[in-house]
């Protein structure tokens, strides 16, 4: 037998390389599937869906009067279904298609071209699209808090469907889909502008357009079940790990830090709202504590991938106090009926978070982003927030005006007095 030295060397080298490969830690490369990342994002998708159904549904549902509880649950559930279909049809491609600086093009309408093999970073693109869908679901669902107890179901479906396609998706494209805000360097890790400022402003516009509920503010309209609201808020807190840590789109240290700062900010905000109320009124309220938690969750959202624990403490404490004032004093002074504080908590909290992201993302303050100066970044954050506010406000008003002309957005006075559960759905929430 002739001994082939070259062949021997080649096999040896292959053998050594194979051995090395087996023992090296898995290195994520931009164009290969990472099963750890994929497994986490599958989980995160479920967590964020859970935030809407039933997290937000119960949080809002408990805050309305008994006669309207089903209307809130139904709105959240129906929005989930409707956004799912519309996202596939057009939302995904408008948000994440190539397109231009303003919106994506339609090459991925109906998720065409997205196969089980298509990748988005280290996860399957189809999974990325579904993860993003859960954001496109919860954003319009947040708005319902502003027009609770007085909006027609049909008008709500038309409005939220159109809003997701025409307002949410373009803004999503600006910030995450390769649009102008992304190129400008705006920092929004998980949706301070795309989700919370967007929904919050839309909510304010809706509250102003629809007008106050009959009897507001002199008639007492107490939450029919704060018990449900606490359950809902707790589900939001847990689910938000999927929202923020999932936005790392990887199972790594960034995700871990995002989870940590989410927890820290929420703890701080719960306490700061609670203590603010304790000082103001003499007793801390359950509603205050859970709303403070939500404020902290909202505010840390844009910052979650960029700030450290100290920044999170500050963002939480500050957002708790500022949202406390916006949902109580400011709201009462200005007189608008934002029934469940979609603007007071999500709008204001999102704005506070977006601006503070510019501050605490700086490495000097414990942050992890590559930014120029704090001043420059805060300016960029301001531009992003202002653009979202302007677009959402104008767009929402136009949509509401059109829908009002077609089907009418508000229920009649008598329907409002009887309650939406009976008048919109022929059902009662409780039968005992």
């Amino acid at each position, binding site marked *: 037998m002739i001994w082939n030295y070259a062949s021997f060397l080649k096999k040896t080298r292959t053998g050594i390389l194979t051995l090395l490969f087996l023992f090296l830690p898995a290195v994520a490369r931009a164009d290969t599937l990472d099963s750890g990342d994929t497994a986490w994002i599958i989980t995160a998708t479920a967590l964020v869906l859970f935030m809407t159904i039933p997290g937000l549904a119960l949080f809002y549902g408990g805050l309305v009067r008994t006669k309207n509880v089903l209307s809130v649950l139904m709105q959240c559930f129906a929005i989930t279904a409707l956004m799912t279909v519309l996202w596939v049809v057009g939302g995904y491609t408008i948000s994440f298609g190539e397109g231009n600086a303003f919106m994506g093009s339609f090459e991925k309408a109906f998720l065409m071209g997205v196969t089980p093999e298509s990748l988005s970073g280290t996860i399957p693109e189809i999974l990325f699209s579904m993860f993003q869908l859960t954001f496109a679901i919860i954003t319009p669902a947040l708005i319902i808090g502003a027009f609770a107890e007085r909006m027609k179901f049909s008008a709500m479906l038309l409005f939220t469907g159109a809003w997701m396609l025409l307002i949410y998706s373009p803004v999503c494209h600006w910030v995450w889909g390769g649009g102008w805000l992304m190129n400008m360097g705006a920092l929004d890790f998980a949706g301070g502008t795309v989700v919370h400022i967007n929904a919050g402003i839309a909510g304010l516009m809706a509250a102003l357009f629809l007008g106050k509920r009959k009897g507001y*503010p002199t008639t*007492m*309209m*107490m*939450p029919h079940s704060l018990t449900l609201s606490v359950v809902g808020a707790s589900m939001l807190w847990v689910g938000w790990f999927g929202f923020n840590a999932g936005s790392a789109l990887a199972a790594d240290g960034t995700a871990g830090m995002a989870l940590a700062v989410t927890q820290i900010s929420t703890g701080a905000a719960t306490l700061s709202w609670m203590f603010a*109320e304790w000082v*103001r*009124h003499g*007793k801390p*309220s359950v*509603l205050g504590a859970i709303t403070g938690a939500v404020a902290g969750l909202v505010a840390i959202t844009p910052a979650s991938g960029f700030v450290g624990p100290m920044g999170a403490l500050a963002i939480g404490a500050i957002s708790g106090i500022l949202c*406390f004032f916006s*949902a*109580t*004093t400011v*709201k*009462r002074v200005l007189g608008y009926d934002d029934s469940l*504080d979609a603007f007071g908590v999500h709008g204001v909290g999102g704005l506070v978070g977006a601006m503070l992201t510019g501050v605490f993302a700086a490495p000097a303050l414990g942050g992890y982003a590559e930014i120029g100066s704090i001043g420059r970044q805060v300016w960029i954050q301001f531009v992003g927030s202002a653009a979202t506010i302007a677009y959402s406000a104008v767009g929402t008003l136009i949509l509401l005006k059109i829908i009002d002309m077609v089907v009418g957005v508000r229920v009649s006075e008598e329907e409002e007095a009887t309650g939406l559960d009976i008048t919109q759905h022929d059902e009662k929430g409780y039968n005992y």
Partner: protein
Amino acid sequence: MKLVIAIIKPGRLEEVREALSQIGVTGMTVSEVKGFGRQKGHTELYRGAEYTIDFVPKVKMETAVDDDLVDKTVSTIVSAAGTGKIGDGKIFVLDLQEAVRIRTGESGSEAL
């Protein structure tokens, strides 16, 4: 026959029921109501706004008794339901024209 209606504090119902059964009053109807007399309500907080709730939860107890048992019934309720504080409640005594036991058709005192 008389119909004795007593509005009492919810927490005193058990005492009243027990005390009445001691004197031979073994039937009553109870409902949960709200009301106020001189007792002040309480405040509730919602989104930083304080609302005054005037109505206080109470229990309404109704029982039909023979004329010769009325005074004892009233005094028993007074001692069992009373706490000495504002909000103890009130008792009303009405003339009862007729009473009928549905199962047997008995009427009058037999039905009580």
